[in-house]
């Protein structure tokens, strides 16, 4: 899999995303219509609809997994990757300007299921931190049959987190605040980013994989 460069652009992109009329103008009517239509037609009517796992709090879309995947791709422009393993580079030229709750969401498709990979910059009691974690697009029971690993390396150091993906029934904020993922201080992130140049750029390489436990 080709490493991607995800640019964590500062306010501009975040604000753009928040202001982007995904959940207000263009899509609203469709969503409401579809939600209304959908409720009557869903196959697994025992299954409650899921909330859209897109981290922006303004999105109130609900639906089943298949619907949400389309919604994430078409309306939120989230990328989807095939395969159990991945390698991403998170780059930012001036990480001190990252305000809290800057995040990236990528979708992963494997084992016939889908997973959300989150990468976030936030403040924990005024200390700037980064966290990466996975959530499973499905219920908690099935989520616990999977495990995942996230690995950050650089500069002769490596940190590995092995965890169990949380179901998207838990909001991404819940998972983030419970620190159930690979979490590092910005100081350490800069240490991983350091190379022979003296740049203060954030260059985090995060790789990982998912596997099924049983």
């Amino acid at each position, binding site marked *: 899999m080709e490493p991607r460069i995800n640019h964590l652009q500062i306010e501009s992109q975040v604000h753009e995303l928040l202001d982007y009329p995904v959940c207000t103008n263009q899509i609203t009517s469709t969503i409401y219509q579809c939600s209304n239509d959908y409720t009557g037609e869903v196959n697994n009517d025992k299954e409650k609809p899921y909330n859209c796992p897109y981290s922006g709090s303004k999105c109130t879309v609900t639906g089943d997994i298949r619907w949400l995947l389309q919604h994430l791709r078409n309306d939120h422009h989230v990328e989807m990757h095939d395969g159990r393993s991945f390698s991403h580079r998170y780059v930012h030229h001036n990480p001190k300007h990252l305000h809290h709750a800057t995040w990236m969401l990528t979708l992963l498709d494997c084992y016939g299921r889908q997973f959300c990979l989150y990468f976030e910059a936030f403040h924990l009691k005024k200390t700037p931190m980064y966290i990466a974690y996975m959530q499973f697009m499905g219920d908690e029971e099935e989520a616990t049959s999977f495990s995942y690993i996230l690995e950050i390396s650089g500069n002769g150091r490596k940190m*590995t987190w092995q965890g169990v993906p949380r179901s998207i029934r838990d909001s991404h904020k819940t998972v983030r605040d419970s620190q159930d993922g690979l979490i590092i201080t910005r100081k350490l992130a800069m240490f991983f980013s350091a*190379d022979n140049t003296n740049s203060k750029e954030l260059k985090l390489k995060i790789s990982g994989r998912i596997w099924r436990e049983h």
Partner: protein
Amino acid sequence: METESMDCESSTRSIPNDNETYHFSSTKKHAGAAAAVVTNIVGPTSTAAATSVYELLECPVCTFSMYPPIHQADDTTQFRDSVAEIALGQAYCHNGHTLCSTCKVRVHNRCPTCRQELGDIRCLALEKVAESLELPCKYYNLGCPEIFPYYSKLNHESLCNFRPYSCPYAGSECGVVGDIPFLVSHLRDDHKVDMHAGSTFNHRYVKSNPREVENATWMLTVFQCFGQYFCLHFEAFQLGMGPVYMAFLRFMGDEEEARSYSYSLEVGGSGRKLTWEGTPRSIRDSHRKVRDSNDGLIIQRNMALFFSSGDRKELKLRITGKIWKEQHSPDSGLCIPNLSS
């Protein structure tokens, strides 16, 4: 020589040798050749012609060689920390007799040669002379073969590989210095540190009330393997984001040799596992510096309690790890940026 009038406070320090009188002639002659003068500076000598200048820079009391700032200090001059290590300069009496400022403190503001008062007189010319002189590294007796002119010498000495190590014990700074075998015994006998042989470990850290994370509660264990000694530190302290636990390894030796080794630390529970892999830092880097650079396994208290099996009220953290020797030196991309705050 420039002279300035200064008020001299009489010293209130009790000075040993107070009652001793010093009898010296203003020029000291040694039996034998002028080269014998430099025998007072034990160790390798440069073949500079100005051996008699060394003589001029010798303190008549302790015969130690002197360095700028060469001035006539009085008792109000602050004693700098470095004076314990280097003779800071000369003091002069109004008759021009000299002695190093270390001894100056002891002579109660009186020139040992003629008993005149000492003042604060600086001699730039003599400082310039001293600057051009070459003297051996002060760690010559520990093996350093190098010779330097004055300013390079001080700089070299702060980095000299032969300089003794400071005691790596965490907590209140222990001022003991020495070589590695000495420090290992010191840790074991004086600090009562646990010693382990082997390159793998499996420790359980238990604390019955983890809410009370005292500032910098820590533990140190020394591991002996590969013919070397490593310090494993485990600490609880407050970071900006709240109470954390940190574990990291330091190598008892220099940074260059530390890079031949790697270590890993692992903590886990409840289907989760956190692993840290890194290069041990040299004990040349203070324990605090390594801790503040976050160069190790850091777990927030909540996560640590999560990993502790049981009711989450007690901390029962199991940390496993191992040390190994790298087959080849790490790639040239390795650099350790200065992360001290």
